[in-house]
């Protein structure tokens, strides 16, 4: 009876790494990222009747995560907290050795660079440049036209190049 629910749960477990990466690139710190993923999972299961069978579960869950993130940003804005600007990068993603230190630096740099982007550009980067989604899928997740997505990406690319490489090459 619950075979399809079991299948959905398995797909959700398989999606967790991508959701965590998306959440981390949005929030910039692991504790908030995992809270966001947990909220996303709970919201998805509680609203599973809204998911259209036959459509992509990953796109739907990324959209929930994105909406929850935007809600939390708005709530913090209302509370007059600092919302953009450099994100906290208290924890790295690897734990040992020289490579860990290197990846920690790379990760910290990247998170700071992402944190300096406006949230709408950060989401576009997280979906297309980091998750590797197609323009069409990313535009669908963000509920925006593809032209809006690509112009956000273009602005983000330039800002990130300056931040990461010191200057952006022109085209």
């Amino acid at each position, binding site marked *: *009876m*619950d075979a*399809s*629910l079991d299948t959905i*749960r398995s797909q*959700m*477990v398989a999606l*967790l*790494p*991508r959701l*965590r*990466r998306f959440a*981390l*690139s949005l929030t910039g710190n692991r504790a908030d990222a*995992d809270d966001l*993923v*947990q909220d996303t*999972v*709970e919201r998805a*299961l*509680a*609203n*599973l*009747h*809204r998911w259209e069978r036959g459509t992509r579960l990953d796109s739907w869950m990324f959209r929930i995560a994105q909406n929850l993130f935007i809600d939390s940003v708005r709530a913090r804005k209302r509370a007059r907290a600092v919302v953009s600007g450099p994100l906290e990068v208290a924890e*790295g*993603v*690897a734990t040992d050795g020289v490579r*860990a230190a290197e*990846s920690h630096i*790379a*990760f910290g*740099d*990247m*998170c700071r660079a992402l944190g300096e982007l406006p949230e709408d550009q950060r989401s576009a*980067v997280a979906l*297309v*440049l*980091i998750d*590797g989604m*197609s*323009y069409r899928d990313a535009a669908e997740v963000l509920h925006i036209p593809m032209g809006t997505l*690509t112009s956000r*990406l*273009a602005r983000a*690319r330039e800002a*990130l*190049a300056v931040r*990461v*490489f010191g200057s*952006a*090459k*022109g*085209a």
Partner: protein
Amino acid sequence: MEPTKDELDAFIDVELSTADMQKIQAVLAQRSDLAAYVNQQTLLRARLSDAFAPLMAEAAPQRLRDAVMSAPVSVRYRIAEQLRAIVDNVRTARFVWRSLVPAAAALACGVLIGVRHEHGVQPDLQTLSSGQTVAEGALADALMNQLASAGAPASGPRIGVSFRNRSGEDCRSFTVPGRRASTAGVACRQGADWVVAALASAPGEAGGAYQRAGAEMPPLVRNAVNAMITGGAFDAATERAARDRGWKSQ
């Protein structure tokens, strides 16, 4: 032809057709300024991807996996799924519905199915104002007293398997034989009642297809039992003990 910046970005993101990718590749071979842009942005993508690679290699925290496995699931989704499963079964088994509404009500109560067959055989059943269907008369008597382990009676209702459901109630599958059509179902003991959780028609004895109670349970009833059962079917001793305490589970 000079590619636009959008086209170069689409090239970097592999969003162009193979032919367009090749065209831009050819332009880049001639234009070091455009190639420098593409190289820098390609490197940026790689850096972004690398920065998050260790996270992708990690196992997700237990609390997230727990959330996936145990967070409450939309009741509307569960009901829709169960109705879908029932409708699939009905289609498969060619059972005919009188009404989906009692089934939905039964599902909402955590019970499984309420189906009537169309052959006009009315076993000892009564539908209460609550919408629940309960066993009466000879059927209630058989559910209360008959032991499947003692063998099937020559006539009248027959009991199939007895088991404990997820709510901790004792349940029993039954068959009420008829000449043209038999009725099979599952009932669970709730207070003083045997509440019918699933009901379906099966070929009658005159048709010769129906052999022995329990052995040839209609798919709808078998699915219902499988969906409800916890801990396996009662063996002879457990069945007897359950009967002796009046099917009152602890």
